[in-house]
């Protein structure tokens, strides 16, 4: 058979089949032979590197489109983000004035040492990266599913990061610590780690999202740590911390915090008529519930004399209470037996009623509490 005898289109067809088939065979052989070097020490070609970066930038931009950025200029939010940054991010990304860990620098792609380069990203993009992580890099996604407000705390800090001097950074991340605290822990540094966000006997929490643990029921605190450690309660900040604690450390920490005097409430000051009205409405929900909406009184469970597994709510921050009720409502805080009790009730509350109840509890002292009103046989 001679080439001239074949009609032109058919010759082209054979050529395509031979080239494609041969290509697939060669590619298969190349993969199976292990010819590609996956070593982190073997760098990409320049063009591959540029292409991968382009894909990354475009992907982050596209997928973060439409994310609404909440107000981030909040000192408490920045401090909370900073505290998490120290344990969660600094090991790879370093902080101002720090040398990056040689281990992180030897990753490929290397974790960028964060500084002015944060300015390259918009807040929505930073949120998306911290929330979802980056494939084929060392960047993990946020461990607390559904805890976006925690991610925003980190973003709030990242926005401030380029402006920080090493001293300011150290100041921000160290947190208030009472010197000479005689805490009989196996590891005394643990108490400092907790109080860095939650405060201690002498200092309040750093942000409204971080609840004060002072005077809280110890059974509840131990359960919360167990649930964080098991991943049944979601939090990108608390899960890694709780998982690293031994059982005895959890108990000791709970005892220590439970022994502190309860936090100071922020009572109605008369400056804000709106807040005062919220507190008044919240008091009604806390004491009597809302029968028409099948909402029982909060204090029927969250009060002294009830199971220690139910947390005390008085004098906790409004932000924390609203956040947690919303997590119950949207199903993020679910799956544990206790969450199954609270979630259906939280879902019966409107957003306004949640704000009312939170305002009330943030304004009252934990001891000074009126008994739930007796409403036996109360019928209109």
């Amino acid at each position: 058979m001679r080439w001239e005898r074949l009609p032109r289109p058919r010759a082209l067809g054979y050529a395509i089949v031979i080239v494609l088939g041969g290509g697939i065979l060669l590619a298969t052989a190349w993969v199976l032979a292990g010819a590609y070097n996956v070593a982190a020490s073997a760098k990409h070609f320049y063009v591959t590197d540029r292409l991968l970066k382009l894909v990354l930038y475009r992907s982050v931009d596209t997928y973060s489109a439409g994310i609404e950025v909440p107000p981030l200029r909040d000192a408490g939010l920045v401090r909370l983000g900073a505290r998490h940054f120290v344990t969660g991010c600094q090991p790879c990304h370093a902080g101002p004035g720090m040398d990056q860990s040689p281990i992180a620098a030897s990753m490929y792609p290397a974790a960028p040492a964060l500084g002015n380069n944060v300015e390259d990203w918009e807040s929505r993009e930073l949120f998306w990266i911290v929330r979802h992580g980056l494939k084929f890099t060392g960047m993990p996604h946020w461990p607390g599913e559904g805890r976006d407000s925690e991610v925003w705390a980190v973003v709030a800090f990242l926005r401030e990061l380029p402006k920080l001097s090493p001293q300011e950074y150290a100041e921000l991340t160290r947190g208030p610590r009472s010197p000479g605290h005689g805490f009989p822990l196996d590891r005394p540094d643990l108490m400092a780690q907790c109080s860095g966000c939650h405060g201690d006997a002498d200092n309040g929490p750093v942000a409204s999202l971080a609840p004060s643990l002072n005077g809280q029921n110890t059974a509840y605190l131990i359960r919360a740590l167990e649930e964080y450690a098991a991943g049944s309660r979601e939090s990108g900040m608390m899960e890694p911390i709780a998982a690293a604690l031994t059982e005895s450390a959890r108990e000791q920490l709970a005892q220590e915090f439970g022994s502190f005097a309860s936090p100071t409430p922020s009572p109605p000051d008369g400056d804000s008529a709106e807040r005062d009205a919220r507190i008044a409405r919240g008091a009604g929900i806390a004491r009597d519930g809302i029968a028409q909406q099948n909402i029982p009184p909060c204090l029927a469970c969250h009060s002294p004399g009830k199971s220690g597994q139910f947390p005390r709510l008085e004098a906790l921050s409004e932000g924390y209470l609203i956040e947690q009720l919303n997590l119950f409502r949207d199903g993020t805080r679910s799956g544990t037996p206790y969450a199954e009790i609270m979630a259906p009730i939280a879902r019966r509350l409107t957003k306004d009623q949640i704000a009312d109840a939170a305002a009330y509890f943030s304004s009252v002292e934990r001891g000074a509490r009126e008994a739930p009103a007796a409403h036996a046989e109360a019928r209109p």
Partner: protein
Amino acid sequence: MRTLRLASLLFLALPAGCGGVQSALVPRGAEATEIDALFWTVTWVSVAVTILVVSFVAIALWGPSRWRNIIADHWVVTVGGIALPVVVLSALLAYGLIVMQVGAARSASADGPGITIVGKRWWWEVIYDRPDGSTVMSANELRLPVGKPVEIRLESDNVIHSFWAPQLGGKLDMIPGRTNVLTLEATEAGISRAQCAEYCGGAHALMSMFVVAMPPEEYEAWLEAEARPASEPSDEAAERGRTLFLENGCGACHTVRGTDAAGVVGPDLTHVGSRRSLAAATLPNDRDAFARWIRDNQHIKPDNLMPPYGNLTDGELTAIAAYLDGLE
């Protein structure tokens, strides 16, 4: 074959549906007795009319020509096609109206303050008004004195339900924002069942209750007992059960008169141990059922308003069940 078996099963099940505690064919109330007579009258008249019509059709098809000539006559159409239906239907209408009128007249005969039943999701709140103006809260069981017409006020604070105690009377809707009044008079003592007869949500079929008709003196004694606060726990297990009941916040939704539990969201449990069923005739009233309900109620009656208490251990559930079972 399978269809045949299924059909024969259904056929066998038919007569079973005609007896029992929830059958309209076993009247034990004044209204039900009248409805029963109306029902059988209409049924037998219908049977007679059907036989008559089928006979005429048969004659028209296969009868000898002499018979066919007769039924082809004008007077057959005039009498059988116009006069007879007018007479029969008018008579039945009049009979039906008379029965309804008797029902309306009975409502005037009702004495005493009556009973309010509120349809909930998915259970019944039953409130007995007493002559002295006080009320007795109860739930998921209706008690009636035999031989006395009682005014039953039907209400709802959520969706439309319908109250139907087939052995005692007809059904009547419970409509949010309005009070419908039904007068029931039990004619003999005994236990029957009421059922929600208007689709009201996923667990509609599990919204039933027992209706207990008692001799008047027994009824008065029972109401007296029902008005009293809850009895004290009789043993250590029940005592522990009461502590657990209160500690775990059950009183947020439930009332047990005589304790701190004063909730108004769920059924009053002051005398729950004396009822014939749990969860609106969904479960028998025993300790196992209490324990199952507390931990697993969302499987037993999906989407009911009570959260499941999976946090309680077997021992704790047993103690709470012992306490509730003892609330007689």
